[in-house]
């Protein structure tokens, strides 16, 4: 990992208030959606994020794209502190960081035609592309595999996958440096997924884009990411390069996650040992002290429930130096 750091989050925390007791009192609980994360995205690279649903991936994405302010911690873009920028600076920042949303429909204004939606970042930034707005928008539509003839249609007239491509075209409109993509391809069929992934890689190659890429589909992440962060309940539990992670996961949760991937081979299912996680997902309102995975972990000892394991080098023979894991008893450790 040599290239320079582009986007960096330090000790990021995002808490949401939950419920309230008295009229003037503080909220009585906090949803600790993101709870102390360090994250580094290098220029021209892709950082994949996977993890349990509800573990805070989308929240992290929104914090990194500065759509919401973190509760504490700081974010740097090319060394500049962007944690609290606002107003005009924030608007300029949007040229550099764009987001593709998890939810293809509600992130599209139903009153605007597709052409207007894709052009909206240009209009907000008051940029008039060379050759005019419409050709540029149609070029973008073509790029993501939408029929440019559909320029004047409205979002509800598109299928789920087509709506997602509208969101991708909009994110590309400003030629950003970083794209934070929250499950950009999960609504698409595999052949179009492949097209979009190829497209994203092509753009990365041509324009030097960097991606934060959230996905549930581990094979997608494996394909596109240079580094993968596995999250569990607001924390990163493992950070490694995909090859190492997939062949020998160090954190028990990573291992369980990988074992649950359905394979596109009907007969093979029963040969794989799927690790069924017992117990409930702990609530992010009052997460357990100690390791957050302890209640569902088959390797948990007393120390796991008492003391939180720090994210440190995975002392594994099978792994490269720079992979990190937060576990008292990582897999394959020596």
């Amino acid at each position: 990992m040599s290239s320079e750091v582009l986007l960096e989050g330090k000790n990021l925390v995002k808490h949401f208030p939950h419920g309230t007791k008295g009229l003037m009192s503080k909220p009585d609980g906090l949803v600790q959606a993101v709870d102390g994360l360090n994250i580094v995205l290098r220029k021209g690279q892709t950082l994949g994020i996977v993890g349990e649903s509800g573990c805070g991936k989308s929240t992290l994405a929104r914090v990194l794209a500065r759509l919401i302010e973190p509760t504490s911690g700081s974010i740097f873009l090319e060394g500049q502190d962007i944690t609290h920028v606002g107003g005009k600076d924030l608007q300029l920042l949007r040229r550099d960081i764009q987001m593709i949303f998890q939810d293809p429909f509600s992130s599209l204004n139903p009153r605007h035609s597709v052409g207007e939606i894709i052009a909206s970042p240009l209009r907000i930034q008051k940029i008039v592309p060379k050759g005019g707005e419409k050709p540029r928008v149609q070029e973008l539509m073509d790029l993501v595999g939408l029929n440019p003839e559909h320029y004047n249609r409205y979002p509800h007239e598109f299928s789920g996958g087509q709506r997602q491509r509208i969101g991708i075209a909009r994110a590309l409109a400003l030629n950003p440096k970083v794209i934070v993509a929250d499950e950009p391809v999960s609504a698409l069929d595999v052949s179009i997924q492949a097209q979009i992934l190829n497209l994203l890689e092509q753009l990365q190659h041509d324009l030097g884009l960097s991606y934060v890429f959230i996905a549930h589909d581990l094979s997608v992440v494996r394909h596109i990411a240079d580094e993968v962060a596995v999250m569990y309940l607001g924390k990163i539990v493992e950070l490694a390069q995909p090859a190492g992670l997939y062949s020998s996961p160090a954190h028990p949760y990573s291992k369980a996650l990988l074992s649950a991937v359905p394979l596109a081979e009907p007969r093979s299912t029963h040969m794989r040992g799927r690790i069924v996680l017992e117990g409930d997902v702990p609530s992010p309102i009052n997460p357990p002290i100690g390791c957050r995975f302890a209640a569902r972990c088959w390797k948990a000892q007393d120390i796991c429930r008492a003391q939180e394991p720090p994210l440190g080098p995975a002392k594994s023979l099978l792994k490269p130096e720079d992979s990190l894991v937060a576990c008292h008893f990582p897999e394959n450790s020596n």
Partner: protein
Amino acid sequence: MSAAVDTPFFYFPVARLLRIALTRFIVRRIFFALVLLAAVSLFTYLLFALLPTDPAALTCGKNCKPELIAANRVRLGYDKPIYEQYWQFVRGIFAGRTYGSGDIAFKCPAPSLGYSFNQHECVSTLIGKTFPVTAYLSLGSFVLWMLLGVGTGIIAALHRGKWQDRLTSLVTSIGVSLPTFYVGLLVLFSVVIWLQWLPFPHYASPTDNLHDFLTAMILPWITLAVLSAASYTRLTRNGVLEAMNEDFVRFGVAKGLKNRTVMRKYVLRAALIPIVTIAGLDFAALLGGAIVTESVFSLPGMGRLAIRSVTDSDLPVLVGTTLVAAVFIVMANAIVDIIYGVLDPRVRLK
């Protein structure tokens, strides 16, 4: 899965917590409104106090003796520094106020907004007499126009593309382009003078003579309501059509809910939220518009009081009416926000 968890007893506190979240939101909003009101009152007062005219000189007619002016200045407190004047004014609102002393003292009970020498009455009494007229006028037409506008909007949306829809769209496009003043006169002329369906309006308070009250009010109500309803018909129609495309509405239908239930709990709720916001602003505008309507239909309302105070240079009345109007605009906005919070949980839990 303990037993306690499943008893109805358990979930009351949770439901209450939610209601408290809403109450907190409302309390906060009202507090904010009060602060705003204080600021508005100060601003209004200062605005008029800093006018280059001498307020005391305006208290009596042309051939006024300088001694009387000086005496009135002391009586009304215009000799004091301005912050003290304002303080007296605010105290008057809460505690009432006596102007002058001895025999020629005028006493205005709380809430005192000043004393009008032109009309020899407390401003609060003047406003008290005229305010109900304006309130009946505004509230009546507001209710009527919301019912009319939202009602026809829903009908048009439900019969999209059919004759009901096309008829409303024709009527509304005429409605939005007509000025109140013109339509008011037209209606007055045709119904009262030409067709003689109604006698010429003579306002009476509803408790004194309900018949006179209604005959005086019905035309202004209808005029205002029909005109403003037009834009609400459009808003509602488009809002409802848009909401019907929402996925959650389809999910509601897929549950097997009755069309009426889906309409009420899913579609209208989403469609009405933007309408509430605009309605609040329009209600405030309606108060301002009352000036025109009251003159056309010769209703003894606050709008006319305000106009008269301008032509008579009756400063205390002008300050009083401006303040009361401001209070209503601030209140209308607060109410809109609260309704908004009640309708949309995403607002209140921010």
